[in-house]
C-alpha cells in the first residue's frame, strides 16, 4: 500500500466520522442563517449587493459575510479531532497498523478539513442558488464556488492546522476559548486600538482575497498597522500571496506535529 493510499483510506473514514457530527451542522447552519438574516444591520459592506450587480460581487459579499464568523465554527469542530484517538483509546490499535504517524496525520487533516468545510460550502451554494433564482443569473453558482475557494477555503486550512494541533498542548476547551479571543483580536480589532494582524496578508478572514474579487479594498485589507511588510496594497498578487501564506501557515503546525509524532513514536 502506498503512502497516498494509506492517507486516502484514513481521510475517507475521518471524513465520514466528522460529517456525521451533528454539532458541526447545527453550528454552521445556525451561524449561516443568523448572518444571512442579520446582514442588513451589519453595515453597507455586508448588505446585499444592489440589483444589477455582477455575480462576482454578489457572491463575494456572501463569502466575506460568512468568513467573518464561520471559521470560528471550523475551529470549534476541529479542536478534538487529534485528541479524539487518545480519548477513545483507538490510538493503540491505529499504531499497530502499517500506516505510519505521518500518513495518519495527513489523512486525518484531509478528511476532517473537507468534512468541516462541507456545510459551509453548502451554505454558499444555497446562497448562490437563492441569488440565481432572485436575479435570474446562474453565474452566481460558479462565482459562489470561486468565492468559497478564495475566501473561505484558505481560512479553513489556516484554522484547521492550529485547531488540530494546539489542543494537543492546550486541551480542546482551553483552545476553543483562546481561539474565539484570537479571532476577534486578529481579524476584526483595528490596529489603531491595539496591535493586531487585522488587515494583513495573514488575516484568515480573507480581506485580500475578497478585495481582489470585489476590485475594491474591504475588511481593512492593507490598513496601516504593525508589520507593515505584511500590509501591501490589495492587488491580485497580494491576494495570491495572502492565500498562499494562509495555506502554508496553516500547514506548519501539522508539519511540526508530524515530525514530533514520528520522533516520539518511532514505531
Amino acid at each position, binding site marked *: *500500500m502506498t503512502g497516498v*493510499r*494509506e492517507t486516502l*483510506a*484514513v481521510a*475517507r*473514514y475521518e471524513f*465520514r*466520522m466528522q460529517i*456525521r457530527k451533528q454539532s458541526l451542522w447545527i453550528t454552521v447552519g445556525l451561524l449561516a442563517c443568523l448572518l444571512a438574516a442579520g446582514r442588513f444591520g451589519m453595515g453597507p459592506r455586508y448588505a446585499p449587493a444592489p440589483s444589477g450587480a455582477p455575480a462576482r460581487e454578489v457572491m463575494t459579499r456572501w463569502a466575506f459575510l460568512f468568513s467573518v464568523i464561520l471559521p470560528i465554527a471550523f475551529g470549534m469542530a476541529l479542536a478534538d479531532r487529534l485528541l479524539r*484517538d487518545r480519548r*477513545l*483509546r*483507538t*490510538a*493503540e*490499535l*491505529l*499504531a*499497530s*497498523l*502499517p*500506516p*505510519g504517524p505521518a500518513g495518519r496525520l495527513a489523512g486525518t487533516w484531509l478528511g476532517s478539513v473537507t468534512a468541516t468545510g462541507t456545510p459551509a460550502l453548502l451554505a454558499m451554494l444555497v446562497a448562490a442558488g437563492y441569488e440565481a433564482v432572485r436575479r435570474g443569473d446562474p453565474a452566481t453558482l460558479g462565482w459562489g464556488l470561486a468565492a468559497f475557494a478564495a475566501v473561505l477555503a484558505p481560512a479553513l486550512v489556516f484554522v484547521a492546522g492550529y485547531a488540530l494541533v494546539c489542543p494537543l498542548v492546550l486541551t480542546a476547551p482551553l483552545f476553543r476559548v483562546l481561539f474565539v479571543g484570537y479571532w476577534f483580536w486578529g481579524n476584526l480589532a483595528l490596529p489603531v486600538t491595539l496591535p493586531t494582524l487585522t488587515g494583513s496578508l495573514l488575516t484568515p478572514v480573507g480581506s485580500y482575497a475578497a478585495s481582489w474579487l470585489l476590485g475594491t479594498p474591504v475588511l481593512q485589507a492593507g490598513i496601516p498597522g504593525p508589520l507593515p511588510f505584511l500590509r501591501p496594497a490589495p492587488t491580485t498578487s497580494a491576494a495570491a500571496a495572502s492565500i498562499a501564506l494562509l495555506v502554508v501557515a496553516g500547514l506548519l503546525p501539522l508539519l511540526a506535529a508530524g515530525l514530533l509524532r514520528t520522533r516520539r513514536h*518511532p*514505531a
Partner: protein
Amino acid sequence: MDIAITGLRRSFGRVAALRGVDLTVPGGMFGLLGGNGAGKTTLMRIMAGVLAPGAGQVSIGGHDMTSRAGRRAVQRRLGYLPQDLGLYPDLSPRELLDYVALLKGLDDPAARRRQIGELLDTVGLTDVAGRRIKGFSGGMRRRLGIAQALLGDPTLLVVDEPTAGLDPEERIRFRTLLAGLAGHRTVLLSTHIVEDIAQTCHDTAVLTAGQVIYTGPVTELTRAAEGATWEVRTTGAPPADGVVVSAVNSGDGFRYRVVSPTRPAPEAAPVPPTLEDGYVALMRRHASTRAAEPATRTAARARWGRR
C-alpha cells in the same frame, strides 16, 4: 511465525518495565502469564510494533523489531487486540472493519467485503453489522476487536488480556474462538487469568517484575506445586503457613486450598495441583529467592568489609 527475544529491556522514565527478557516462542498458542505490572502489556506492545525496544534483540519471523522497517514488515502480518481496546462509537462494525482492512492494505473491495462478512459471522455480529458501536456491550466490543485483528489473515495474533471484564459465558466462548485460531498461526495470549492459559495453551511463560521466570509447557508449570498443594478442612483460622489459593465455606467449617512446601497444618491432606497452584508455587519460590538475595549480598559485603 517464530519469535526470539534476547536481553530485551524497556523503561518509561526511571521505571523499568522490562529488565532483560529472554524468550522463544515456537508457534501455535502461547500464553504469557503474570500479575499486574509484570510487564506483559509492554512486551505485547513491542511485539505489535507499537513500542520500540529499549535494548536487546527481538526477532519475529526473521524481522528485526529494533528497526522501523522490521516493525512495519511484522505489522503487515499482524493481528493485534490491545488490552485497552478503543473503537469509534459512530461507526458500525462493518465500517470499522472496512476502515481497518483498508489500513491493512486490503485494497480489493470485493475481497474486503467478503472477508468482513465472514469475520462478522465468525464472531457472531452479523445481525448488528449495521448498528453504531456506541450501544455495544463489552463482550460485543471484544468480539469486534478479535474480528479486526483477524483481518488480512495474519500469521501472528497478539491478544492482550482479551477476556478481562467479560462474563463467564462470553469468556469461555472467546477462549474457544482463540484456541481455534491457533491452528496455522502464532497466537500470543497475555493474561493474568490462569484459567485462560490452562484451557488454551500448550506452552507458557511467566513474567514478573519485567523478567521471565518460567518458560515451558503448562503441564510442567503445574508440576511446580506437586507435593506442595494441600487441602485443609477446619473450623478455625486459615493455616498461617503457605498461600491460601481458595477458601470455601462448607457450612460446618472452611475448606482451604493451600500451596506450601511443608504441611501447613496437621489435618492437611495433599491434593493434585492445578495450573493456578503451580503458578502460585512458582511466584512464591521466586519471591523467597529474591528476598534472600539482598541478605546474601549484605552478608558478602560484611565479609569483605571485615577483611
